[in-house]
């Protein structure tokens, strides 16, 4: 028994080391091909955001679509702080996270009572309203000789500085962004692995499975629902700042995009809702397929075909494998091992 434990422990260590080595080497090998670097960044980025969505919709069972609003608030906070006051991007990221937690929890607090679909609708309305507000909200900047408007539909540019980790911007290469996103993702997964095994994680699942039963056993439902939204808001806004730094530009239609929110939801469900590795599996499958389709059909007369194929694929998977790919694959692996 002890021997087996040891070997499985070694196996685990080996696997982790192999994964780490692969993650370090892969961007370096692909350094001459920005397309693949961008693909890796996108996979990590989607996973990061999908995990945030998974916490509220998967673990605690609050189907909500406000993450993209919090994502945008994070992006806008750090960008505006940089553009207006010259605040460092990393500090802006933390301030953005605090603002997003404040807004997210502040909105969810009165909505905690709402069940199922009504919460989904309320959060959808919230996201739509935030987008329209940002579309119409312009800031007047008085400079010495002229006044200029920033924000609104025009968006905000991040002032260009030197390429450095401190300023969180690179112009010639995308590789540092790739490593940063990977580090974010690894940190997030370390948190998630610990979180799922913790008492709070079990409370989350208990609330999802049966709210009344959890309540009768003394679980403070309101507290944990707010906590789940705070964690999701934190991750969403961090992803937002990263995205803003990656593009060096924010603009309401692109940032607060409901279709983007739906994409996140779809790929999480594709991978496995409420599964730790569901978002990862979902984006590893979804992002390359959607990118490949976009590259193939984009700009041709069949531009719309990308979304149509993705939609049909999703409906097929949802109707055939309702538990998501993760549970489906793990069932297959179990069968193979026996």
């Amino acid at each position: 028994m002890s021997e087996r434990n040891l070997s499985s422990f070694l196996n685990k260590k080996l696997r982790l080391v192999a994964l780490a080595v692969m993650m370090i080497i892969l961007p370096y090998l692909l350094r001459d091909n920005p397309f693949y670097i961008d693909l890796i960044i996108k996979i990590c980025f989607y996973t990061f955001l999908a995990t945030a969505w998974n916490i509220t919709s998967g673990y605690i069972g609050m189907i909500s679509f406000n993450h993209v609003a919090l994502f945008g608030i994070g992006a806008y906070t750090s960008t505006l702080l940089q553009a207006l006051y010259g605040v460092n991007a990393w500090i802006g990221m933390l301030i953005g996270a605090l603002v997003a937690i404040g807004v997210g929890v502040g909105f969810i607090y009165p909505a905690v009572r709402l069940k199922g679909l009504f919460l989904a609708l309320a959060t959808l309305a919230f996201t739509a309203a935030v987008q329209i507000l940002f579309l119409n909200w312009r800031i007047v900047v008085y400079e010495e000789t002229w006044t200029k408007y920033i924000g609104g539909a025009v968006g905000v540019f991040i002032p260009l500085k030197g390429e450095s980790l401190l300023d969180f911007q690179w112009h010639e290469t995308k590789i540092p962004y790739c490593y940063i996103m990977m580090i974010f993702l690894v940190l997030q997964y370390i948190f998630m692995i610990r979180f799922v095994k913790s008492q709070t994680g079990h409370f989350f699942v208990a609330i999802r499975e049966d709210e009344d039963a959890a309540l009768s056993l003394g679980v403070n439902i309101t507290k944990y629902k707010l906590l789940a939204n705070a964690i999701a808001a934190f991750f969403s806004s961090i992803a937002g700042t990263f995205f803003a730094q990656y593009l060096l530009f924010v603009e309401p239609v692109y940032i607060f995009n409901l279709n983007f929110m739906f994409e996140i939801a779809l790929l999480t469900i594709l991978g496995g809702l409420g599964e730790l590795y569901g978002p990862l599996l979902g984006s590893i499958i979804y992002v390359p397929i959607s990118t490949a389709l976009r590259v193939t059909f984009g700009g041709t007369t069949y531009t719309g075909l990308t979304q149509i194929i993705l939609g049909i694929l999703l409906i097929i998977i949802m109707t055939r494998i309702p538990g998501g790919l993760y549970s489906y694959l793990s069932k297959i692996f179990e069968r193979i091992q026996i």
Partner: protein
Amino acid sequence: MVNIPLQVFVNGLLMGGIYAMAAIGLTLIWGVMNFINFASGQMTMFGMYITLILAIGRNLDPVAAVMVAMIIMFAMGLFVEKIVIEPIADSPRLFQIVVSIAMGLILENLAFMIWGAEIKSMPKSLGSMKFLSKVIDFGLIRLSPTRLMPLPAAIILTISLHYFLTRTRIGLGIRGVAQNTTAAYLMGIDVRKAYTLTWGLGVSFMGLAGGFLMLFQPAYPAVGLEFILISFIAVTLGGAGSYIGTFIGSIVMGVVEALSGFFLFPALRQVVYLSLFVIMLFIRPTGLFPTKEAG
């Protein structure tokens, strides 16, 4: 002399008729199957385009095209229910949401591929459009018959749907399924047929809303997105599954949208009704006219 606030109010009221048709389609499926159709806006958009191509391509009179579009949308509702909805009828709520979102994506991009992204409107020289699109002066307000038609049509539709559901055998069957699926099944009602029929009716109402809208507003593939939130809000205001409530909710939405666009900033009119919706959900999530059928 045109009284502008009154004109805006009446325009909103009449627009409420369009919203009512789409929202009643939504509330019917919501009430009977407990399924929120996130593709409802895109179905309205499809109704618009089908009316347009029937009128232009098949030389149908525009008003007749609206009716034919409704029948085509009825068939589409049956088809969608059989192909997509039946396999996921028992899956969790979230899956149903996601499948309908995917359906909306497919429909929107299909329209984009077939008809292109440009804005298309009904030519004013086609058949009855010649006199229907003429503006009539009522003294304080001016309206064209195309704008006047949807509201009476929505009233007739609501009343006939009410009679269908309370007086006919099939309608009573659908209500039975809505109240208690298992009991209805045990009483010998074909639940599957009731679901299929509900989808056909619901989608045909969404298509009808699109058809009437096509007579005075241009169509483009993304037009559906605006409809989704408005119909959801109208349904929640009235109480899901309540037809009269949904009708009133839609009229309220039309008026609120028009007035807030006129008295506040036009760009922020959506924020006004979205905020109203969220406040409404917080205070009274069951809507103004809650029904037991909403479940």
